[in-house]
């Protein structure tokens, strides 16, 4: 292999690895706080990318309908709960958040034609459409069963994943979309050309990771999420409810997923079901970190990206096989290590 090709593959691998790293961090976060293995993480990647593509194509993204429907369902459930607890004063706020806000957003999309708006506004609108789906799905699918076992929660995740993929096909169709690059800039370093979009992905991922670090280390809400991950009962006794922690972590996971999708949609064509494989590669990274360590998960995800990129050159037919086979030695190593700890 020539050096130039090696560099090109490395660049590709690190770009994808950065995205996998973000997803791995989100998976670790969600698992640590709620014990949910968040298989639908990838769907947020696809929804983010496809929603942005729809907006740019001048279509009304299907995620609007999903937002309105989930909002209405939650409004009904929460109002019933409030009525049962005789807290009727809460009902207007419930309706405002779950019905009025999505309707307002839908109104904005219809009133202004998003295709003509500048890119940052389109990105913002796409995020506003996709990110609220995270806490909404938590409220509807996970919150009622939050105390079940990890295995049961995993089964809920599979159900949510299958449902969301189906909804994705309905809303966005079987056609893939690719959004134009955020920037046309490119840099030549020696013989290699560095694409502006690649740099953008790397810088955005790095910034996001730093922002997450600051959130967890410096803010009281970030610390509350860490506290919940460390000691659920202790956190509850401080008034940090599992519901609050769950909704917060799902919001973060949805935001990370949607942003990842928006970042990579100029680099690769995204289909309604593309998210699953992307999320699964983040999951391999998260497994390398034992679903517990953020830095190891991120490093593992970058390794997955590089492995994928180089194996696509040498054995492109087995690219996915090689990546997912990586999980076997990792699990073997992890299980051996765990037994050692237990023996002590």
């Amino acid at each position, binding site marked *: 292999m020539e050096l130039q090709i090696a560099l090109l593959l490395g660049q590709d691998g690190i770009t994808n690895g950065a995205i996998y790293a973000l997803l791995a961090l989100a998976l670790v976060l969600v698992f640590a706080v709620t014990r949910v293995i968040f298989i639908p993480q990838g769907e947020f990647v696809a929804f983010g990318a496809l929603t942005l593509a729809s907006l740019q194509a001048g279509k009304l993204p299907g995620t609007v309908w999903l937002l309105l429907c989930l909002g209405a369902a939650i409004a009904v459930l929460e109002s019933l709960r409030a009525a049962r*607890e*005789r807290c009727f004063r809460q009902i207007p706020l419930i309706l405002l958040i779950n019905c009025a806000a999505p309707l307002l957003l839908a109104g904005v999309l219809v009133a202004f034609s998003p295709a003509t708006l500048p890119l940052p506004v389109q990105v913002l609108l796409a995020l506003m459409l996709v990110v609220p789906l995270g806490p909404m799905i938590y409220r509807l699918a996970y919150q009622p069963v939050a105390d079940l076992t990890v295995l049961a929660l995993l089964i809920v995740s599979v159900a949510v994943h299958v449902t969301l993929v189906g909804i994705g096909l309905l809303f966005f169709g079987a056609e893939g979309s690719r959004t134009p690059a955020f920037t046309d800039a490119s840099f030549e370093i020696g013989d290699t050309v560095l694409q502006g979009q690649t740099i953008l992905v790397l810088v955005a991922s790095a910034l996001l990771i730093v922002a997450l670090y600051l959130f967890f280390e410096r803010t*009281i809400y970030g610390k*509350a999420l860490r506290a919940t991950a460390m000691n659920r009962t202790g956190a509850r*006794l401080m008034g940090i409810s599992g519901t609050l922690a769950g909704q917060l972590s799902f919001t973060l996971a949805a935001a990370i997923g949607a942003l990842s999708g928006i970042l990579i949609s100029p680099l690769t064509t995204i289909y309604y079901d593309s998210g699953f494989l992307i999320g699964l590669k983040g999951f391999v990274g998260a497994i390398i970190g034992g679903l517990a360590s953020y830095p190891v998960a991120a490093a593992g995800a970058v390794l997955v990206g590089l492995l994928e990129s180089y194996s696509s050159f040498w054995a492109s037919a087995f690219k996915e096989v090689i990546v997912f086979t990586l999980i076997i030695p990792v699990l073997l190593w992890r299980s051996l290590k765990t037994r050692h700890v237990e023996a002590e």
Partner: protein
Amino acid sequence: MNAAIDPAEPEIVLDAAGLSVAYGKVTALRDVSLKVRKGEIVTVIGPNGAGKTTLLSALIGLLPVRGELVYLGERQGPGRSVEKLVRQGMTLVPEKRELFAEMSVEDNLLMGAFDRYRAGHRDELETMDQVFDIFPRLRERRQQMAGTLSGGERQMLAMGRALMAKPKLLLLDEPSLGLAPLIIKEIFRTVARLRKTGVAILLVEQNARAALQVADYGYVLETGDLSLAGPSRDLANDPRVIESYLGLGGRG
């Protein structure tokens, strides 16, 4: 909703009447009634397995109860939850401490103020200073991870973290558990001092001697039933209590 307020006794913080708790078909608490007033230390003593921890878990809303529960003059209905009670100033220091082991002492304390922060209060640093005044040892250890503290320090941190919520009712579950006698003395001296801040304290203890010394009023809990009640001085002199819980030394 406020029908339960009794104008003759406005200072009652917690009024429980006929509380029962069952784990499936096993009844852990039967028909327990007790009152805690503002600025008062009430203790519930009893042997292992009498249902003391169950009582506190039920009061804070971790377990469902039957019976009547009035907290701060408000009858607790079906919407009762840990989060709501914490918001209304009820705080539990659990038997197992339940600290955040991989967080610093300071961050553990900060978490104690989480609910107040969420409700819009921004006085957590002041409160932390007050807690450090009560437990100077915690100030020395403020950057240390909670998991590396000694048993006594952990208990202090658990209590300090609870005080960060500026509680109106503090529920203490076996603060003496697993601690050396000198540390127990220090902890109980602190409990007695807390009374001056006006907080009501419900102290559950196996160490009957130490508990009756600081408390104003006491109850004896045996296999899920309250068997005795009275001012703690009387209880400490009651032959039944002396025989079962204080041993041959009597009040010594």
